[in-house]
């Protein structure tokens, strides 16, 4: 897989400088990694592209090519695949569409291509995909409009378009990716293969997935169950199809919603399921950045759980409500304090600091939701600094900041973001992520 995700040489079949084309998009993205590898452009009709010499065919290139990206019309793809095999390339991505997604004829063509590469033992991504991105080695073998920053989230997506928008969002909100894979029609490498690749990847801490359909469900459950023992997988499933219902004859079977079957499979495999694109990346970033609450010890003392610390009653109460809805347990705080612990509107940063420390020292407390409303004596920047510093002292207990506000609060939330924290804007979001952080490691119902 080294040849696919960190190639020393890459060739693009279908390179072009035609404005607004997929080919040009890939050309530009590949050139982003110019210093990292040799890049060859192939186009029999153009002598030069962006001042770089082109080749007529893969057969003309003397060097062994680690990765070939194919972006030409579907009807021409088979021929170049045969050529790729004849020179023995390391791996192939077929960007082109016009295969199984179009129906029977396309499926036949796809099968032929699949067989060509399978016989030659060459890993294949696609067809009908956006491509792959490995920011760490500046590999952008896709036609995405931009390259994301390096991070620890692997994003595997059945949809390429979603990847495009997520990259754009991540650049604004300052998060990054270890890998991005648009896996397309899965003729060669499947979602299950990419899950294994992301699991083996040392830079990946969290695996985020968007999918509409799983091709081999039983294998998925086996693979995912193994991975979730050590790495979280978060999935957004789109498409609540009616097709399954049409195909069945008997009564109860016709009531069976496919989405419930997927949810059951996710539960069996220890996968975290989310329902919105926003939640997918909130959860991914939380699990990337925060320690998972350590539930290893059996507590014999006070009831264990999370603590909510707040300088405003309302935000504490609403957060507690959401915790209750999501089944996030709140701890009994030792001493006279309630949970949520309201340190009142005039709480200085010193008071926040003392309270936060005392909560984290209590062994029954998994982590703290740090709520801040903006009152006249509130210092968001100082509070943000306290969170960053204290988290270092308690590396196993997540501190989740919920700084409510806007212009003035931004000083604090920007500092948090810069220091690898995610600031939440909604009690519901912070409670949901607290739930994901408390999920026992390796939990499966199987």
């Amino acid at each position: 897989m080294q040849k696919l995700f960190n190639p020393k040489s890459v060739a693009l079949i279908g390179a072009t400088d035609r404005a607004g084309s997929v080919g040009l998009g890939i050309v530009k993205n590949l050139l982003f990694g110019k210093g990292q590898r040799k890049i060859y452009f192939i186009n029999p009709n153009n002598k030069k592209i962006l001042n770089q010499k082109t080749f007529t065919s893969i057969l003309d290139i003397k060097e062994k090519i680690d990765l070939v990206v194919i972006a030409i019309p579907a009807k021409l793809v088979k021929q170049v695949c045969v050529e790729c095999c004849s020179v023995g390339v390391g791996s192939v991505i077929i960007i082109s569409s016009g295969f199984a997604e179009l129906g029977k004829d396309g499926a036949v063509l796809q099968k032929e291509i699949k067989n060509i590469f399978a016989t030659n033992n060459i890993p294949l991504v696609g067809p009908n995909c956006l491509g792959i991105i490995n920011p760490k080695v500046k590999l952008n073998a896709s036609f995405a409009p931009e390259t994301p920053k390096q991070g620890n989230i692997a994003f595997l997506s059945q949809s390429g378009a979603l990847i495009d928008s997520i990259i754009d969002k991540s650049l604004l909100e300052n998060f990054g990716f270890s890998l991005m894979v648009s896996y397309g029609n899965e003729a060669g490498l499947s979602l299950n293969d990419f899950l294994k690749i992301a699991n083996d990847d040392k830079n990946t801490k969290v695996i985020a997935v968007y999918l509409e359909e799983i091709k081999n469900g039983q294998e998925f459950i086996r693979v995912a169950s193994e991975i979730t023992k050590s790495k979280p997988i978060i999935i957004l499933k789109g498409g609540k199809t009616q097709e399954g219902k049409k195909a069945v004859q008997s009564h109860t079977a016709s009531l069976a919603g496919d989405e419930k079957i997927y949810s059951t499979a996710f539960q069996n495999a220890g996968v975290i399921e989310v329902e919105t694109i926003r939640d997918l990346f909130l959860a991914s970033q939380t699990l990337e950045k925060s320690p998972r609450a350590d539930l290893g010890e059996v507590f014999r003392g006070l009831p264990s759980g999370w603590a909510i610390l707040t300088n405003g009653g309302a935000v504490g109460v609403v957060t507690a409500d959401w915790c209750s809805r999501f089944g996030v347990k709140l701890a009994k705080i030792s001493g006279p304090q309630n949970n949520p612990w309201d340190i009142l509107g005039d709480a200085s940063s010193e008071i926040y600091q003392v309270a936060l420390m005392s909560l984290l020292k209590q062994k029954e407390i998994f982590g703290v939701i740090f709520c801040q409303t903006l009152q006249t004596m509130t210092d968001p920047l100082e509070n943000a600094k306290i969170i960053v510093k204290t988290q270092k002292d308690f590396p196993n207990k997540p501190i989740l900041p919920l700084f409510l506000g806007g212009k003035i609060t931004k000083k604090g939330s920007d500092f948090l973001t810069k220091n690898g924290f995610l600031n939440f804007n909604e009690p519901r979001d912070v409670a949901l992520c607290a739930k994901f952080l408390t999920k026992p490691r390796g939990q499966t119902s199987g």
Partner: protein
Amino acid sequence: MLLDFKKTRELLEKYQIPMVESLVIETLEQGIEFAKEVGFPVVLKLISNDILHKVDKGLVKLNIQNDLDLEASFKALSALKSFQGTQGTQCLVQKQVGGIELFVGMKRDKSFGPVISFGLGGIFVEVLEDIVFGICPLDKKQAIEMIKNIKGYKILQGYRGQPPIDIEKLSDILVNISRLAIENNNIQEIDFNPVIASENNILVVDAKII
């Protein structure tokens, strides 16, 4: 194709899935004999290939209390025999049992293979869609988990003075259906509806296997 009653019963026996006492009859006398043996009330059903919703089509006569009732019901159903899709001249007579109505189903999912569904019958499934799924192979622990996951679980635990139902037995049935599904690839769908659960017994009352 819908499996006939005899084969259905054999399959259920093989997989230790208990069925309510039933007999296929061709004459009224056979029905009366059976009712004497098991005791009234009984239920009479016209055996039909047209599988959905027998009750809606008047193909099921419930609460038959005595010989006279049985005769009237038998005649009524015999008159319907020309009904499209009915098999020969047969009726099914069953002991009528009371308890909580459940359903258990199986279908083959394109991605995950055989999947067991379970829930409370009647409005719980029709209106509230209170269904849980289990992906085969199902072990006992998963089956118990499934049962506990329906919203109406409290009803199974004994609600308003009703005795609780035997969760152990029920989970065994789910596991056995999972086994049946895995070992019989030719079976596409299973629909046991209703399955009636009382304190000591869980019995399949209507079984459709396709």
